[in-house]
């Protein structure tokens, strides 16, 4: 989806500073949110791609305001409510009651976990299909436009590059995130020149990015 998460190449964000003394978790709740986010995939019967899509589905204002662990927390709630493990509004009502208000918490709802085939743990898969592309081939990134999940960023679409490396096959996030099948396929690291991506006058650099076979066509 063309969301706030797809940040590559955007202007206006200012500079980056490094805090050399940053702890792993700056606040206690960051660690709790991280752990519950990680566990929410199993508890909701979903998967890592659905989790990433859950982050993308947050409202853009919330995506930015929540910060990294705030997003994990909101995403955990989203997946658990989608799967009926928690009722809509349950977290808000409990939070209000913990804050000294007295509100009625919603009744539990019926579980609604997704039903789909899984080809094993993790994301890597063995496949028999021969790879469509070889190292050195020129390829064009397809103009994939979807309101669902994809790992094709906007800044790559429509641009032409060269296959740099053939990586292990993996399930396709675009379908797996929506429980529509794993569709495992070859993955390639594709190299793009900065002028191809950003126009003449771009800063000289080589950009390498991992793209699924169905994202690419011969050029």
């Amino acid at each position: 989806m063309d969301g706030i998460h797809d940040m590559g190449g955007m202007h206006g964000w200012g500079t980056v500073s490094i805090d050399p003394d940053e702890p792993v978790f700056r606040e206690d709740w960051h660690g709790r949110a991280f752990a519950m986010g990680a566990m929410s995939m199993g508890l909701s019967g979903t998967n890592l791609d659905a989790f990433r899509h859950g982050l993308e589905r947050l409202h853009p204002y919330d995506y930015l305001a929540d910060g990294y662990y705030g997003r994990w927390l909101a995403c955990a709630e989203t997946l658990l409510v989608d799967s009926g493990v928690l009722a809509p509004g349950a977290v808000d009502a409990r939070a209000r009651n913990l804050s000294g208000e007295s509100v009625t918490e919603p009744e539990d709802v019926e579980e609604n976990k997704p039903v789909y085939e899984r080809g094993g743990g993790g994301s890597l898969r063995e496949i028999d299909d021969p790879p469509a592309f070889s190292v050195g081939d020129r390829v064009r990134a397809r103009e994939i436009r979807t309101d669902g999940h994809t790992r094709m960023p906007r800044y790559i679409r429509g641009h032409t590059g060269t296959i740099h490396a053939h990586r292990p096959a993996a399930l396709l996030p675009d379908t797996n995130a929506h429980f529509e099948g794993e569709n495992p396929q070859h993955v390639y690291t594709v190299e793009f020149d900065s002028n191809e991506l950003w126009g003449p006058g771009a800063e000289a650099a080589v950009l390498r990015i991992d793209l699924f076979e169905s994202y690419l066509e011969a050029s």
Partner: protein
Amino acid sequence: MADPTKNKDRLPPEVRAEALESLLAERGLIKSEVLDGFINRMVNDVGPMNGAKVVAKAWVDEDYRAQLLADGTGAIKEMGFAGPQGEHIVVVENSDAVHNVVVCTLCSCYPWPVLGLPPEWYKDPAYRSRMVREPRTLLGEMGLDLDDGVEVRVWDSSAENRYLVLPQRPEGTESLAEDELAALVTRDAMVGVAKVSAG
């Protein structure tokens, strides 16, 4: 008009985290000790100290360096480091001619087994937006000035491959032992936003 960037009805995240934990605990779905285990693992067991051991070994052992560049996942697993976000790790080597740097523009993918969880700067929209478009300028702002002749290679980790930068061994470290070298290697150098200095 109300400030659209603030959802005033939403309670602060620390309260919502407590609420979510209590709801899941009373349904028997999570235990506090299990959450503690997740947290302890990320704080104590994984982190840049793991990647630093890999880098130092590659600096002193030419066979290991070759293996690491050919099969990062296998060579890293040999050192005892594996797990989530490390299914397939690719190691890319810096030299006088090439400087590699890693980003994830779509979220904040990062090689957990060797570097732990990503720092705030790696997750900053400024880093995610600019590193693919003006890497040399951004590296300069972050304190790393590269010579004009150096080729900058930016790796956007958009699938399940994770990237670790093998930094250059600094001059003046010839007499150091492997564990002394590991103590010099920083997280920032293994992402590619800094060089390792001799201390």
